[in-house]
């Protein structure tokens, strides 16, 4: 029997269709139900039921002959067709012992033990003095048409900084954990991927070394839902994630020695309040020693990742978004690495 897993987020829907053991297709429908588009035609339940049926019929499968599993943000979604499992994102996070999922979309931030959501656009903001008239129109249009991808980087940064503002100041991640950044924010096909890594830097709180994975297809939600239904159906959940690299938050200036054992050791000194990206992607593990006042001395082994080693030596928790120079510097560094890929 074929299987369809669907994840319904706030800006798009992602699917994993498994026709046979080897025939797996990941695809997305980059729109969602919104009242400003559909309220005179159908309700949310009718729309998503239609969408799932359409997706299956387009692949030559009758809905009643397929195991349908769904996950959704935030509450489990109900459809007018029979589903084998319907779960909310919080259940998926609770069932992830092997990693720390960090779920981010344009409305919320969720990870183990924390849910931080934004109020609706109109409940939240008020026109403030000094703001140019009509300045907030783009933001209001995102609210009407949640699938819109901002066409300029400044609009995206505005959206991202609002996500970060909602994270409690005292919240910190445990050093040494494998963090998987997932959710609608990272699965949206935005044209400037460098902003993903800046957002990750902003979300990361606490000093330490974090192994970061990026989920560009919402495959965490899809695979975890399948695992919750039948663990044997997903052998390796990690294969769907990008291994971005190590994010190292030192809390001040640091020294670092990277030894590959091939005679090309690199010694790097990074002054405080900088973001420095070192592209490292190795076949075999190298030894990394990091020394800083905040962290002490840490020795670990790493193979880097798609981005490499990302050092964050900010002393105070000042936002990158509020420091134009630092923001531009970060953008350039990530851009160079992404363009090389």
């Amino acid at each position, binding site marked *: 029997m074929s299987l369809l897993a669907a994840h319904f987020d706030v800006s798009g829907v992602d699917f994993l269709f498994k026709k046979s053991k080897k025939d797996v297709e990941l695809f997305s429908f980059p729109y969602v139900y919104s009242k*400003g588009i559909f309220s005179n035609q159908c309700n949310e339940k009718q729309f998503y039921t*239609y969408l799932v049926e359409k997706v299956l019929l387009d692949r030559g499968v009758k809905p009643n002959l397929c195991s349908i599993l769904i996950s959704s943000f935030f509450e489990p979604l109900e459809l007018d067709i029979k589903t084998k499992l319907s779960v909310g994102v919080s259940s998926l996070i609770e069932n992830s012992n092997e990693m720390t999922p960090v779920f981010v979309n344009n409305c919320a931030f969720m990870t183990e033990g924390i849910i931080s959501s934004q109020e609706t656009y109109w409940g939240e903001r008020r026109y403030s003095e000094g703001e140019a008239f009509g300045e907030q129109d783009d933001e209001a249009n995102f609210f009407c048409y949640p699938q819109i991808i901002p066409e300029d980087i400044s609009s995206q940064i505005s959206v991202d900084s609002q996500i970060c503002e909602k994270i409690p100041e005292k919240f910190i991640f445990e050093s040494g954990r494998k963090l998987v950044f997932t959710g609608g924010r990272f699965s949206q096909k935005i044209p400037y991927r460098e902003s993903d890594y800046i957002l990750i830097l902003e979300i990361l709180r606490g000093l330490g070394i974090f192994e970061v994975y990026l989920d560009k297809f919402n495959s965490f939600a899809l695979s975890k839902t399948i695992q919750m239904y039948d663990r044997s159906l997903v052998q390796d959940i990690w294969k769907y994630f990008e291994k971005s690299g190590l994010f190292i938050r030192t809390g001040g200036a640091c020294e670092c020695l990277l030894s590959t054992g091939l005679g090309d050791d690199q010694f790097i000194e990074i002054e405080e309040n900088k973001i420095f990206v070192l592209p490292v992607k190795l076949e075999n593990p190298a030894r990394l020693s990091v020394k800083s006042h905040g962290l002490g001395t840490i020795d670990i082994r790493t193979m880097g990742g798609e981005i490499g080693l990302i050092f964050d030596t900010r002393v105070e928790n000042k936002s990158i978004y509020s420091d134009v120079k630092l923001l531009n510097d970060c953008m350039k560094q990530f851009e160079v690495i992404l363009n090389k890929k």
Partner: protein
Amino acid sequence: MLAPVLRRITENNCLVERVFPVDGEWLVKPEDFVEPFSPLGKCRFSQNSKILPGKFKPVDFNPPKKFYYAGSLVGKTGKEKFYAPYDGNLVETRGKGYIFEEAERDYILLSGVWGKIRSLFENKSALIESQSKDILFSASTNVYTSGELVVFPNPSDVLKTSYLEKFIKDSRKKIIYIGNNVGLDVAKRAYELGVSAVIAGSVHSEVFELAQKYNLALGVFSGFGEIRTPEDVYKFLSSVSYRYVFFEGEKNILRVPVRKEDLSRFSAKSDKKTSGKNRDERDHPEYVKNVESGMSVQVLQKPYFGWVGVVDRVAESSIFVKFGLNDKSAEIKSPNFLIVE
């Protein structure tokens, strides 16, 4: 490439509830057929009142209330005399203030729609089975109201306020289509004049916030910014000017009651033309479709935000759209567009 289908005007069978302001008596019974000007029932109540300023001093007043004929002197606020605007009573409130209430008079509750009485609930409300054409708002305040539709001929910004003040004899309880765009001053004036609802092509987000603050019914067809009203919507509104319509903010629709024969599925002319396939699509509309050349699309990407054009060609993750200005087509990235039918 799948994309949602936006249908700005849809036809629906609906139930319309008409409610007495106070308990009344019915002039109809279940199963009766009614037309918009058919009286459903009548009741008596004070239909106007005016709260008088704190410094108001009555003349020859016996608490707790006294009757005055229209035009007679009621009292003074400083040197300013207050004459009864209608036959009514001056009433002393608990806080030692005064309200002038119009004397009770008959109120006829009209049907407002073509349809059949389904049920009467006590002496309070009637439920009517009817049919409507529903126009979709991309955004609307969460207010329910009904009233006579007045359609301004898309006046220029300079003329909008004078249209509001002079075009209609009494703008109270009217649902007014003001134009392609409504500014803050015009919206404020509409509120002061007691307009029931303001509808337009677009507004700036600040105007929407003002409407929310004052609980003013406000609906926009195209979005936020300065975006024109879609041509088909304006034409339809013009054709039903002065009809009694229902503003349903929670559902993002303007409900326009129509005769059964005005619906396309009851039109003999349209049925002859409609083939089996099209008839099936009309009865079971597709909410999403594959984008193809020649389709109409609404663009949600600057500088064409809100524009409707025709798909010239479809690429892997974008489409090329012609707007009829010249032979050039513009690239619009997925998902920044909607199919329009």
